[in-house]
């Protein structure tokens, strides 16, 4: 990946040399840049100097990604050089064809990356055929915390694919399809039409089970064409690779045949675009033999009948073998040595081998070549002649086969564009087939997409958890959110009752719908969401010196500053990790802020233990209370896992603790204390606060105060940070340039305080 920071804009280009994919984009905020960087998780980042000074915490980046980050010399980023580099490589006149004319910063990063790759890869990079320029606004924004919390591609606990959403959806048959599905998941769409096209494709596959399963059967033997091609380009492909290629190509014709009746736009488009590469298949099938060796310089590669010279040389070799056999037989008779043999080794070539017992029967024209413990090895003129002939023809044969092999390989390389296109068609086909297969297997339904911001899910289920519990016992729940009276759902109820699962399932269902997949529900009407934010789970980050509370507040801050009215917020227990009063107050204020359409107005699921917050339902008309149903049976609670309207009045924390096995003595004492505390219930105080809120003026004023207070609190902290760094500067040993750079870096830090 290459990042260039020029004049307040960030250009970003990323390339996978094994597949040839090359993406470029440009953003104006460090936050967005970091989102993209975390999305790709590159192993190596090169950049220009200014990027290192722009205020982003490079060390943290290095640590989190486990990537190497360093700056290239300035000349890499010269705009003319970059432009030339691009036009030269892709053999075009201008960069407009890639949409880079309006993205100068992006163009520079692309050119710089190309230059860097040329330097390090030392080959033609022919597998990079095009630059895909995109806009981050084309896709749903998911920051790294959300990707992690929702466990899209790997689990939090052990970073495995199994147990993540990708693990549930990925039933692709090819490696290319797997990669394509992953990128679908990482870049959900926000355009209704594009989503509908994908849904239609999945739908068609669902209705035609037989065709779909047939296609999946044919996809099974298809190898990773993209990676195979990169081996061809790097000239490291061996005959077996080409055979693998050929056997993959063989599947294309039947696949195309199966596709011919498709009517959906996406699938019929793929049908038209699928180039079955018949000519290449024929070439490989006719040229490469069935079981070639791994070595490319030792023959056995080319099939019989492909090339006359090869065939005749082979015959010569075979004849040679016959001649040898004949010679052996003749000499055996002639000399009378019954166990006379002609053998071969690399050092001595061909020789007669005679055991010591027959040594004296050896005729005079035998020239001794080698003595062994129990045998002697000889040669004759005749044998030498034959040997020369055979070895010569062998040499010629090997070199000819090698040349022919290279020819075939190079023909493939010339066709790389066609092959890449076919690979991407196959990948997409595989993805849609997989999504349909999973939709059928797991009993999903087709979501309808609306642009009114209404999220209406009936009997929704969590796609991963329902598979993991494995006994059809997942309890479904409805979700209803919109931009009016149902903007915020405050969910109360005990721990372990399923609040987190419920909220995550809502987010996952929305995300799945926006990928174009069917969703685990009886029916779903999904309003397009531009971003999903999650604030769930504990996250101590002791290594970077931040407590749980600090991290959570930073995440909340990030959300509140970056969400829009079309975003979906999943907030789990805001305000814990600090004193009850502080936590409750923060949570309260956050809910008020979000519910106000002039301030934010995003759809939110807000889980909390502060059931005082249920007071907000009457006071703010876009807030609704829900709780997780539990049933008490004496001291025990039964988790019903159903979301019902209304607020919980108890947290059942004590009962859950009892379930967990906390000793009875502690439980009983806790119950006593709860009684006492309830008498001094803060609920009463809270109610009065709620009433006061009705006065508009005071509400506004208070908000500003709180706002300012919050700002100054954090600003103090930031300033300390920068101040201490200033204090520690060693001015005596700095050049003026260094000093200026440091000054610039500190200034940027202050400006960009809210990135993390």
């Amino acid at each position, binding site marked *: 990946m290459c990042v260039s920071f020029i004049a307040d804009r960030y250009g970003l280009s990323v390339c996978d040399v094994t597949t040839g994919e090359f993406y470029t984009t440009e953003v104006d905020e460090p936050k967005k840049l970091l989102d993209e960087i975390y999305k790709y998780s590159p192993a190596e980042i090169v950049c220009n100097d200014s990027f290192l000074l722009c205020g982003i915490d490079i060390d943290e980046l290095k640590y989190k990604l486990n990537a190497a980050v360093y700056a290239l010399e300035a000349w890499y980023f010269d705009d003319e050089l970059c432009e030339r580099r691009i036009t030269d490589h892709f053999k075009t006149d201008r960069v407009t064809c890639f949409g880079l004319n309006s993205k100068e910063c992006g163009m520079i990063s692309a050119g710089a990356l190309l230059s860097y790759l040329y330097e390090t890869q030392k080959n033609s990079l022919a597998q990079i055929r095009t630059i895909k320029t995109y806009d981050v606004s084309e896709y749903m924004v998911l920051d790294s915390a959300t990707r992690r919390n929702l466990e899209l591609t790997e689990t939090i606990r052990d970073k495995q694919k199994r147990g993540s959403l990708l693990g549930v959806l990925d039933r692709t048959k090819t490696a290319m399809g797997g990669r394509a599905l992953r990128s679908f998941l990482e870049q959900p769409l926000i355009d209704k039409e594009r989503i509908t096209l994908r849904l239609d494709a999945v739908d068609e596959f669902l209705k035609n089970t037989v065709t779909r399963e047939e296609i999946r059967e044919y996809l099974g033997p298809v190898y990773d064409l993209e990676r195979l091609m990169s081996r061809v380009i790097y000239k490291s492909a061996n005959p077996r690779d080409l055979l693998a290629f050929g056997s993959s190509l063989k599947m294309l014709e039947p696949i195309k045949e199966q596709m011919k009746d498709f009517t959906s736009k996406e699938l019929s488009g793929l049908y038209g675009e699928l180039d079955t590469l018949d000519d290449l298949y024929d070439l490989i099938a006719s040229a490469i033999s069935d079981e070639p060796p791994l070595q490319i310089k030792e023959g056995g590669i080319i099939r019989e009948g492909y090339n006359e010279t090869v065939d005749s040389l082979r015959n010569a070799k075979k004849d040679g073998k016959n001649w040898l056999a004949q010679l052996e037989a003749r000499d055996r008779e002639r000399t009378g040595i019954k166990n006379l043999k002609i053998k071969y080794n690399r050092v001595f070539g061909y020789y007669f081998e005679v055991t010591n017992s027959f040594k004296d029967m050896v005729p005079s024209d035998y020239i001794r070549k080698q003595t062994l413990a129990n045998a002697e090895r000889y040669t004759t003129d005749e044998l030498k002649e034959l040997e020369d002939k055979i070895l010569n023809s062998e040499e010629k044969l090997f070199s000819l086969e090698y040349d022919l092999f290279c020819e075939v390989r190079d023909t493939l390389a010339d066709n790389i564009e066609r092959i890449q296109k076919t690979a991407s068609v196959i990948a997409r086909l595989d993805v849609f087939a997989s999504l349909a297969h999973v939709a059928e297997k797991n009993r999903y339904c087709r979501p309808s997409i609306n642009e009114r911001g209404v999220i209406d899910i009936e009997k929704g289920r969590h796609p991963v958890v329902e598979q993991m519990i494995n006994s059809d016992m997942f*309890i479904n729940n409805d979700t209803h959110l919109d931009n009016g009276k149902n903007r915020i759902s405050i969910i109360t109820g005990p721990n372990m009752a399923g609040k987190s699962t419920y909220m995550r399932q809502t987010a996952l269902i929305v995300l799945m719908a926006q990928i174009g997949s069917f969703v685990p529900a009886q029916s779903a009407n999904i309003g397009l969401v531009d971003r999903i934010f999650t604030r769930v789970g504990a996250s101590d980050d002791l290594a970077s010196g931040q407590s749980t509370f600090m991290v959570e507040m930073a995440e909340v801050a990030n959300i509140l500053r970056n969400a829009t009215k079309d975003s979906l917020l999943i907030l789990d227990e805001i305000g814990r990790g600090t004193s009850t009063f502080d936590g409750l107050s923060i949570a309260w204020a956050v809910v008020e802020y979000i519910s106000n359409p002039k301030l934010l107005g995003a759809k939110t699921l807000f889980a909390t233990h502060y059931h005082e917050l249920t007071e907000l339902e009457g006071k703010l008309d876009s807030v609704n209370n829900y709780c997780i149903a539990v049933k008490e049976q004496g001291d025990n609670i039964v988790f*019903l*896992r159903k979301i019902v309207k209304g607020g919980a009045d108890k947290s059942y924390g004590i009962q859950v603790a009892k379930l967990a096995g906390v000793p009875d003595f502690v439980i009983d004492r806790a119950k006593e204390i709860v009684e006492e505390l309830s008498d001094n219930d803060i609920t009463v105080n809270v109610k009065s606060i709620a009433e006061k809120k009705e006065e508009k003026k005071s509400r506004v004023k208070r908000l500003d105060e709180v706002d300012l207070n919050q700002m100054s609190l954090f600003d103090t902290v930031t300033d300390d940070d920068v101040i201490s760094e200033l204090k520690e500067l060693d001015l005596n040993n700095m050049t003026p340039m260094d000093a200026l750079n440091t000054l610039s870096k500190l200034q940027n830090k202050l400006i960009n305080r809210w990135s993390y």
Partner: protein
Amino acid sequence: MDRNIQILDKNTIDKIAAGEVVERPMSVVKELVENSIDAGANAITVEIKDGGISYIRVTDNGCGIQRRDIKTAFLRHATSKIHSIEDLIDVGSLGFRGEALSSIAAVSKVELLTKTAEDISGSRYVIEGSKELSFDDVGVPEGTTFIVRQLFYNTPARRKFLKTPQTEGSYISDYMEKVMLSHPDISFKLIINNNTRLQSSGNGEIIDIIYSLYGRDMTQALLPINTSDGDIKITGYIGKPELSRGNRSFELYYVNRRYIQSTVIRRALDEAYKPYLMLHKYPVVFLFLDISPELIDVNVHPTKKEIRFLEGGQLYDMLVNSIRDTLSGRELIAQIHETDDEDNTFDHAPENVRPEPFEQNAIGTFTAEHENERPVLSLHETPSYKSEDHNGLSERIEAYRHMPASIERLNINVSDREKTDVFYESVSRSDDHDNEGKADAKHEQLSMFEHGFLRASYKAV
């Protein structure tokens, strides 16, 4: 020993009666699945371990059981399916004798988890050997789950007579295959020892189920069949003669969506395929018969497997005729496919082409010459396919247009005499390809078919 006549105690009665209904794990699965279907579920999962001897679970998403009805459900002769004997005539549901649950509970350890849509909490009821152990609230999704553990734990004699887990499991598997076919609109799943073995999508397409159960080779050799006659409708797929088998295990037929055996149907199949198959070879058929309930008697056999028909003869004739039609019509379709289907330049059939009336068929010569061969028609003229034409062929072709899911009422006027000939109906199958005039006729046949239909029929074939 006391040899007086005495009434048995309840426990013993239960166990004995249970033996009638619950012979083996497969019976338990069958009863529970039928209950699930009656409950209106569209997704049913069956999980077994150890062939079903130690563990059977049937989960459905149907209407659930009300809390107040749970205890009653396990009593003998308790059922929600009928209220009086008159209901029995109209019985649309599969279970109705009210014996299943009490029988199962008498000889195993049962756990019931159920929740109706109205209730917020579900119920968990545990009963072992007819003795209730617990009754609690529980969190479960809507629907019902029965878990039956340790079948015949209290009747060791019965248990000894069970076959190996593999065998018992295969009975269950066979049953599941049949029930999947009879209810294509329900999604079924069968899990054996933690592996999902069978699954159907519930999308209503029989052919999808056949494909997933039996594979591509069988699916490609099946022909759709679709015919009706007043009270009897027949749909489904029949196998081409090349799919012959050594036994009747693939003669699968369902009456009103219930898998049954019937001598009438068996004989009809034998007769229909007689010209095509060798002796001791049997065809592959998947037939679905819809017959008005008044014409059937279901209460014959405890396991409801054999049924009796009121109008056996009518059924017999209808089956033989329609099967033979399809099999002969098959060649028609196959030939059409060989020609270029883009050749639809004809708008109408030529005027002078009319069907050869049945009476003019050289029936006698036919039967004499072509006893065991595939029938070859001796028609000299080809029929037209105008829609006004009431010869049954065009209607049958219309029928092929639709997949078996929809049933059409066809007006096949099959007079007594023609019954045997309908097989040799005026199908334009000129086998003498050297006759140029016929080639045109073949194209004309094409003109009647839409593009899509051809492709659809090819897919089915």
